C-alpha cells in the first residue's frame, strides 16, 4: 500500500508566547456604567465621547446576540476584562519600549518590518498603542498617523465628525459593545492629493488572559489621496475565551484610493467579531485584501458602500480553517450610485474538521444603474471531515446592473494528488501545490511580504512527515 502522510497542525510557538502581566490598571470584570465612566476618565476623554460610550452601553444591553452564523454561546462576555493598559507610556522611539514587550514584538518581526521602509508602526499591545512612528516627510505633507486615543483629543473635530458614523452602535450587539468600551487603534488622515507611497502598518495583539480587544481604526482620505494600510494581528493563547470586537471605518474621498490589507492569525481560542466598513465617493477606490487563518470563531464581512458615481470596490479574501475553527467570512458591497463597480474574489479552505464559509452580500439600490458587479467564491475541502460552503446573497432593486457570479465548492481530488505524485512529487507537496494553486489568484493580489507570509502559513498548515 502507498505511504500515508501525517498532516500536523501549525506550530504556533512563535505566536503563543506571553509575558508576565504587570498592569497599571485593570477594570473589574463585567460591564456597568461605572466601569465605562472610569475608562473614559482614565483616558481624559471629552464629554461627548463619555456620553457616546454610555449610550452605546445602553444599546448593547438591549441587543440580542446574533443567532445566525457561528455558535458563540460559549463566549462569556461578562467575564471579559474590557480594558487593560500595559505598563508603558506611549513611545515614539523603539529604544524606549520596555524590554519584555519588545521581545514579543521582536519575535513577531516589528522592528525589522519598519526597517524595511514601512511608513510608520502603530503597534497595539493589549488595549493601547505603545509604539508609534511616522516618517518625517509624511508629517510635513500633513499626513496624520497616530493612536486613536490621542486623536480624539488632538483632532477632536475630525474624529467627532466621523467616529462611528459608518458603523453605528445600533448596527449590532458587538458594534454597541465596541462603542462602549473601544480602546486603542489607529487614526490616519491623508490630505487632498497626497500619495502615501509606502504602506502604513499597524500591528496589534492581545496579551492578557480574558482581555477583550476593541480597537478602533479610522482612516480618512481626502480628494485624490492614495494610501495603503496594513493591519496585522496575532495573539498569544490562553484558556479563557478571548473576544475581539474591533471596528474599522474607512472614508475614501473623491478620486481617492485606499488599499486595506489584513492577515489575521489569532490564537485558536479567539472570538473574532470584527466590523469593517468603507464609504467610497465619486471615482474613489477601496481595495480590501483579507486573510483569515487564526481564531476559534470569526465572523467578518467587510462592507463597501459605493456612495459616489463610478466608485469602485475590490475584495480579495482567503480563509483557512483547521481543526476546531469556525470561520465565517465574506464581503458586502452596496451599490448606492450609478456606474459603480465591484469585484469580489474569495477562497476558503477547510481541513481536519475545520469549517470555512463564504457569506457575502451584494446589494444594488434603485439608482445604481449601469453598475457592474462580479462575485467569485470558491471552497476547497482537504478531507471528508471538513466543511466548507459558499452563501452569496443578492438584493437588487434595479435591473440595470451587470452581474457576473461564480461559486464553486469541492474536495481536493485524489486523482489530482495521484497525478502529481506520479511525477515524483510527495503527497504532502502535492497537496500543498494544489492548495497554493487554489489560492494563486489571491496571492497575486497581496503585497510581496504578505504573499510570502501566506505561503509560509499554507506550508505550516500542510506540513507533515512521511511515515
Amino acid at each position, binding site marked *: *500500500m*502507498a*505511504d500515508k502522510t501525517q498532516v500536523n497542525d501549525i506550530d504556533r510557538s512563535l505566536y503563543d508566547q506571553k509575558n508576565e502581566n504587570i498592569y497599571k490598571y485593570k477594570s473589574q470584570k463585567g460591564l456597568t456604567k461605572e466601569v465605562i465612566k472610569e475608562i473614559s476618565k482614565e483616558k481624559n476623554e471629552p464629554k461627548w465621547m463619555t456620553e457616546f460610550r454610555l449610550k452605546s452601553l445602553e444599546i448593547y444591553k438591549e441587543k440580542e446576540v446574533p443567532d445566525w452564523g457561528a455558535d458563540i454561546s460559549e463566549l462569556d462576555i461578562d467575564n471579559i476584562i474590557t480594558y487593560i493598559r500595559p505598563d508603558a507610556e506611549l513611545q515614539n522611539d523603539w529604544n524606549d519600549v520596555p524590554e519584555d514587550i519588545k521581545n514579543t514584538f521582536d519575535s513577531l518581526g516589528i522592528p525589522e518590518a519598519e526597517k524595511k521602509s514601512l511608513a510608520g508602526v502603530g503597534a497595539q499591545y493589549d488595549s493601547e498603542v505603545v509604539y508609534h512612528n511616522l516618517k518625517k516627510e509624511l508629517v510635513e505633507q500633513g499626513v496624520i498617523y497616530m493612536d486613536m486615543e490621542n486623536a480624539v483629543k488632538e483632532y477632536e473635530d475630525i474624529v467627532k465628525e466621523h467616529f462611528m458614523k459608518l458603523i453605528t452602535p445600533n448596527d449590532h450587539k458587538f458594534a454597541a459593545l465596541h462603542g462602549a468600551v473601544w480602546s486603542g487603534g489607529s487614526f490616519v488622515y491623508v490630505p487632498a492629493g497626497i500619495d502615501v507611497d509606502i504602506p502604513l502598518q499597524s500591528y496589534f495583539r492581545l496579551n492578557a488572559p480574558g482581555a477583550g480587544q476593541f480597537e478602533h481604526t479610522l482612516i480618512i482620505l481626502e480628494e485624490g489621496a492614495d494610501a495603503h494600510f496594513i493591519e496585522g494581528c496575532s495573539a498569544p493563547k490562553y484558556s479563557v475565551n478571548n473576544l475581539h470586537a474591533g471596528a474599522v471605518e474607512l472614508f475614501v474621498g473623491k478620486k481617492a484610493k485606499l488599499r486595506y490589507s489584513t492577515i489575521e492569525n489569532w490564537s485558536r481560542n479567539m472570538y473574532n467579531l470584527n466590523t469593517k466598513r468603507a464609504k467610497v465617493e465619486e471615482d474613489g477606490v477601496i481595495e480590501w485584501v483579507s486573510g483569515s487563518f487564526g481564531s476559534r470563531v470569526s465572523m467578518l464581512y467587510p462592507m463597501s458602500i459605493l456612495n459616489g458615481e463610478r466608485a469602485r470596490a475590490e475584495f480579495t479574501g482567503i480563509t483557512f480553517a483547521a481543526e476546531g475553527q469556525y470561520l465565517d467570512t465574506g464581503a458586502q458591497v452596496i451599490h448606492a450610485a450609478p456606474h459603480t463597480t465591484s469585484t469580489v474574489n474569495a477562497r476558503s479552505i477547510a481541513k481536519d474538521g475545520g469549517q470555512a464559509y463564504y457569506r457575502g452580500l451584494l446589494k444594488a439600490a434603485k439608482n445604481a444603474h449601469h453598475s457592474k458587479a462580479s462575485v467569485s467564491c470558491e471552497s476547497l475541502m482537504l478531507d471528508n471531515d471538513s466543511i466548507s460552503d459558499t452563501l452569496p446573497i443578492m438584493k437588487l432593486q434595479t435591473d440595470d446592473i451587470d452581474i457576473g457570479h461564480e461559486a464553486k465548492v469541492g474536495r481536493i*481530488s*485524489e*486523482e*489530482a494528488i*495521484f*497525478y*502529481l*505524485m*506520479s*511525477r*515524483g*512529487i*510527495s*503527497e504532502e*507537496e*502535492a497537496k500543498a*501545490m*494544489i492548495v*497554493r*494553486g*487554489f*489560492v*494563486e*489568484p489571491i496571492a497575486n493580489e497581496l503585497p510581496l511580504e504578505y504573499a510570502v507570509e501566506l505561503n509560509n502559513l499554507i506550508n505550516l498548515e500542510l506540513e507533515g512527515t512521511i511515515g
Partner: protein
Amino acid sequence: MDNKLIKICNLESRVEEEEILKGINLEVEKGEIHVIMGPNGSGKSTLANVLMGHPDYEITAGEVDFEGENINDLAVDKRAKKGIFLSFQYPQEIPGVTVENFLRTAKTSVTGENQSIFDFKFLLEEKMKMLDIDESYADRYLNKGFSGGEKKKNEILQMAVLEPKLAVLDETDSGLDVDATKTVAEGIKKLSSKDNSMIIITHHNQILDYLEPDYVHVLVEGKIVKSGGMELAREIEKNGYAEYKEDAEKLNTKTNC
C-alpha cells in the same frame, strides 16, 4: 549484465471488489517497446494504474519487480523516482500551477537535484521545441483549458523532461486527429532509446506504424492471451478480438516465475 527492467508475474488486481487483472505475466528489457492492445474493459488502464501504484488498485496476488526489486508496496512518488512514468489517458487539470513550476518541482524530486531556474528554462524550451509546443505553454496552468491534443502533448513533454526508464503510455493517441497523432508519435520516437523502455496501450495502429514496436500483446478479460510482433496488431485490425474472447476464460496463464 541483467538487462531486465520490469518483470510482472501472475499479477492480479481488483478495484472496488471487482477482479480486473487475472494473472498478468510480462517482462520488458531495456530498449524495448511493448504494445498492449485489447477491447474496452479488458484491464489495460488498470494495468497502467497498478504499475504506477494508484492507491485504489489493490494487488491481490503476484509481483511487480523493477530492476530486480519488488515494488508492490512502493508509494507512487517513489516509483517515479525509480524511473517509472505514466502518460495519463485523462490528465488532471491543476489550476494556479504553471507547467514550468510544476515540471521544475517534479524534475527536482525525481533527480534529487535542485534545478536552477535559468538552466531549467533552457531545458524546457529545448524539449518544447522538439515536440513542437509553443513556448507560451510554460506559463499556462497545468492542463487547464488545454484541448485533448494539447493535454496529450503535455504528457509527452513531461516524459521528455523527466527522462524515465520505463514509460507507460495509456492511450496517448486516443482522441487525436491524424496530424496530432503524428506529432505525438514522432515525439515519442525521439525519446525512445536503448536505455529506456515503453509499454504502449492503444486501440489504433497508426501510432504503431511510427514506433515499430518489438512486441505486441493482446489483453482480454484481465489476461494476456497472445503475444507476437506487428503482424499480430495487423491481424487484430482486420478481425477484432472475438476469437480471443472465447479462449480467455479457459486460459491458464499461471507460471512459475
